[in-house]
């Protein structure tokens, strides 16, 4: 018994991650995203964007050598995320964080980054009421739910799709988006044909498509998390004949995200979505970005929003560190630098709100089309400087 325990304790001690040596001038940046499980693509894209960024801009902005600490949040798992943030901050002495992704993870981490004064870039959580409210050290380069959920309501009414059916995933962000859209729809003078909440487990859509058919709407608005649900919902719209019957399919950009849209196939054609970024965005900066990204990371998996969010976060990190050239890293000065900053991103111009720290950006209405045989989100309308509220 005694020896067993001693041996196991020794083994555990040996298994501890070795404490890393810290160079004075280096800056530790924690990257806490999901590398495994159902949500592993986010982590892969973050890594790909970081790789590209560093190959272009080096790894020592303003003389601060960047040292990356990567950890896997495994998806929406606040208990693990909180521990990883805690470890990153207290043990690895991380000074800047990218992530954690997912709203619950971010919420769980907020008190720690506040107490430890660690500037944190939200690159994978969209819920309102996180940034600014939960911590002065949180800022966002992703998007905020209203930015994507609001615009399609007036757009639909404008196009005379007045009777809209709303279908969202039955979890907190879905409920959020449902409310925002329905309010906006009423405000725009449209009518609600019906609404449905789809369980996040066991999504078999045929019962729901039948209900939508029964309601005979002009259009359907869909909000689903990336993955099984986003994929399944679009295919169900197509398979059930709703789309063929002329019902317009709309939704947030998740449902036609580039990394999944190939699996959706032709069912995604002509779907109208809101998005913060499309690889088709027509700007010189984006063309260069897409070409270099593809060259470095290959064409598959295709680039999704995780990459652009990480890219812009790094832009801010590098610029902020450059501004503190030769000085010891000061998180408050860094946050002051980041807030209120406006810059050109491959997605278009973006601004970090001075008062709140959340993102203000263009939102694009896109139609999914085949471009050179590949499904792409083609921007058809630009809504400039959309608020996060």
């Amino acid at each position, binding site marked *: 018994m005694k020896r067993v325990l001693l041996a196991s304790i020794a083994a555990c001690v040996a298994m501890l991650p070795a404490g890393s040596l810290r160079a004075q001038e280096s800056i530790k940046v924690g990257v806490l995203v999901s590398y495994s*499980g*159902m949500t*592993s*693509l986010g982590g*892969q894209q973050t890594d790909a964007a970081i790789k590209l960024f560093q190959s272009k801009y080096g790894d020592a902005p303003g003389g601060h050598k960047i040292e990356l600490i990567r950890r896997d949040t495994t998806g929406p798992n606040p208990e693990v995320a909180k521990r990883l943030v805690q470890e990153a901050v207290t043990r690895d002495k991380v000074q800047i964080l990218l992530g954690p992704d997912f709203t619950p993870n971010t919420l769980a981490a907020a008190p720690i980054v506040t107490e430890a004064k660690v500037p944190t870039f939200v690159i994978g959580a969209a819920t309102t009421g996180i940034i600014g409210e939960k911590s002065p050290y949180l800022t966002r380069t992703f998007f905020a739910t209203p930015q994507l959920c609001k615009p399609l309501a007036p757009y639909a009414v404008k196009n005379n799709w007045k009777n809209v059916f709303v279908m969202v995933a*039955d979890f907190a962000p879905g409920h959020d988006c449902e409310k925002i859209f329905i309010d906006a729809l009423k405000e725009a003078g449209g009518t609600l044909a019906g609404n*449905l*909440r789809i*369980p996040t*487990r*066991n999504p*078999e859509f*045929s*019962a*729901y498509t*039948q*209900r939508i*058919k*029964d309601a005979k709407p002009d259009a359907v608005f869909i909000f689903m998390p990336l*993955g*099984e649900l986003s*994929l*399944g919902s679009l*295919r169900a719209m197509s*398979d*059930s*004949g709703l789309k*063929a019957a002329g019902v317009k399919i709309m939704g947030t950009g998740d449902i036609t995200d580039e*990394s*999944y849209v*190939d*699996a*959706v*196939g032709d069912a995604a054609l002509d779907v109208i979505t809101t998005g913060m970024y499309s690889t088709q965005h027509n700007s010189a900066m984006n063309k260069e970005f897409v070409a270099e990204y593809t060259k470095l990371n290959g064409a*598959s*998996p295709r680039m999704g929003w995780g990459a652009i969010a990480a890219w812009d976060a790094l832009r801010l990190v590098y610029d902020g560190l450059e501004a503190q050239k030769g000085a010891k890293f000061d998180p408050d000065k860094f946050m002051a630098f980041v807030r209120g900053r406006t810059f050109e991103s491959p997605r278009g111009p973006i601004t970090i709100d001075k008062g709140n720290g959340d993102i203000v950006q263009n939102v694009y209405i896109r139609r999914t089309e085949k471009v050179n045989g590949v499904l792409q989100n083609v921007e058809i309308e630009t809504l400039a400087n959309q608020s996060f509220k």
Partner: protein
Amino acid sequence: MTSIATVLFNGVAYGMLLFIMSVGLSVTLGMMNFVNLAQASFSMFGGYIVVLVVQRLGLPFLVSLPIAFIIVGLFSIVIERLVFRHFYGTDDLTQVLLTIGLVFMSISTASYFFGGTYQRIDMPAWLSGQRDIFGLTLERYRIFIVVSGAILSLVLILGLERTKLGGMVRACVDNPRAANGCGLNTQMIFAVTFAIGGGLAGLGGALSANLLGIDPNFPLRYLVYLLIIVSVGGMGTIGGTLIAAVTLGVADVAGKYYFPSFGGFVIYAITIAVMLWRPRGLLGRTA
């Protein structure tokens, strides 16, 4: 009226898919008393074979189905010989741990070879879109699923009822000891059954690739349903598995249609009710 009929039909189609995926698990559980959760991984494997055959090799979808059945069947027998046979007779929890470990490994392996995203499968035109039958507008692919599921059930049930191998399998399920004493090579029959069960799981995965989507997490997403169907139906009974799968498929779809806010619970509520009422499943033997 037409809505109800369509909902029912869709439920049956969903149930058929679940049936094909779970029937192998049911038979191996009933016959060998072996809890093989990796059956869900076999299904995923079948799905990826369709992806390879249809998307990469460009062969027709119909050709990919028998290929998935055969390859997964052969693969399952390799696994059975290499790993599982050492664990016959161990307790359930050990088998659960072993096979869930294999499921984890299969997830990473799939993600290594195919990436984390969902796979695209182009269906031939005759399987896409809708078709009007008896005044109902039904999805062509679901019609295909129902028809092939019905044929498969018929083949399985007849095969088990009318062939000598089927008789041997039933004899082994009934009483493996007596079967052995009467000259049946139970080990060999187990192995063949295992291969067929694995092949069916692969076929189920192949058929569901279009409807449910194939990605590395497929096994974990459907494992619970397979377990529920097998236990509700009664282990080792093909008829029971069919009834359970179709009932749960219909109940799920109908529940979601009529009570969208509680629809997700229906399957679980039925499971609890059946397990309290008949702990060995609907058609399970009372030992």
